[in-house]
């Protein structure tokens, strides 16, 4: 993993809040855990809320053009996307 631990911890917290995962399920997410398309509760409204919350907590701006299935496919994809946004990768 090239991402910093802090980014990983923050992202798990965002997903836990948006999806109501609880600490155990949030901690159990791996790079291969499926998100968009794999979790029925993650519909377009929930994704919009998730992205807005990520923008607020990481202080980044996500352009609508950047949002697609590749960036949201797995936990690892999303973490890598944010790390790139933060200039960590």
């Amino acid at each position, binding site marked *: 993993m090239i991402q910093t631990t802090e980014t990983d911890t923050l992202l798990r*917290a965002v997903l*836990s*809040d*948006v*999806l*109501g995962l609880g600490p155990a399920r949030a901690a159990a997410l791996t790079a291969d855990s499926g998100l968009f398309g794999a979790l029925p*509760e*993650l*519909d*377009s*409204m*929930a*994704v*919009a*809320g998730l*992205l*807005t*919350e990520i923008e607020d907590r990481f202080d980044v701006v996500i352009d*609508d053009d950047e*949002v*697609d299935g590749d960036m949201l496919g797995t936990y690892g994809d999303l973490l890598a996307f944010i790390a790139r946004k933060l200039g960590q990768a």
Partner: protein
Amino acid sequence: MPTTWPCPGPADELAVVLDRARRVRLLIVPALFEEMNRTRRMLVETQRRLDALGVDSMLPDLPGCNESPQAFAAQSLGSWRDAMAAAARHFAATHVLAVRGGALVFPTALPGWVLEPQRGTSILRQLLRARILAAKEAGRVENTADLLEQGRHQGLGLAGYQLSAALVAGLDAALPQDEGQRVIRQSELGAGALWLRSEPGEDPAQSAALARIIAAEASA
């Protein structure tokens, strides 16, 4: 308990009311759009806790929302402000709690609290983003600027809601209206915010914390 109240418009609206004619009477102005549904159980539980702490409370429907007989497409920030002002008068509210987007439409003359107030542009941006994502999945390309332009003139369907042109324009410009009301932050309630949840949830501990803050500060 569900009670009707005379709202401006064609019909009376409903409110959840716990009223024993006590000194502190709290009007609760709900969050807007999906966040209203996600926080409803939390707010009703907060009302029960407030009742136990000696505080009366009323949670009215915004016209066009929840059980309202009015059309959502006919609403604007202005109609919601008029409605909440009428509810405050009808119930003789002494205090107000505005939740999230409710901070855009609550009666500002009352003392009280705003819970994590939200700017109108943030609400609109999230709704537009949901529509753009849904369109992308369906193979259509839409963009924020064009949708906003269309919405300001003709109104716009966003995330299952038909927004009037007035509501789009109002949200695009509106800031939280709090003037001296105390801002309550989620960190004071603990755990994750329930309005973020993609599926509505509940957390009695958060409701209890919110009720304790209000009951303590109202009698301070």
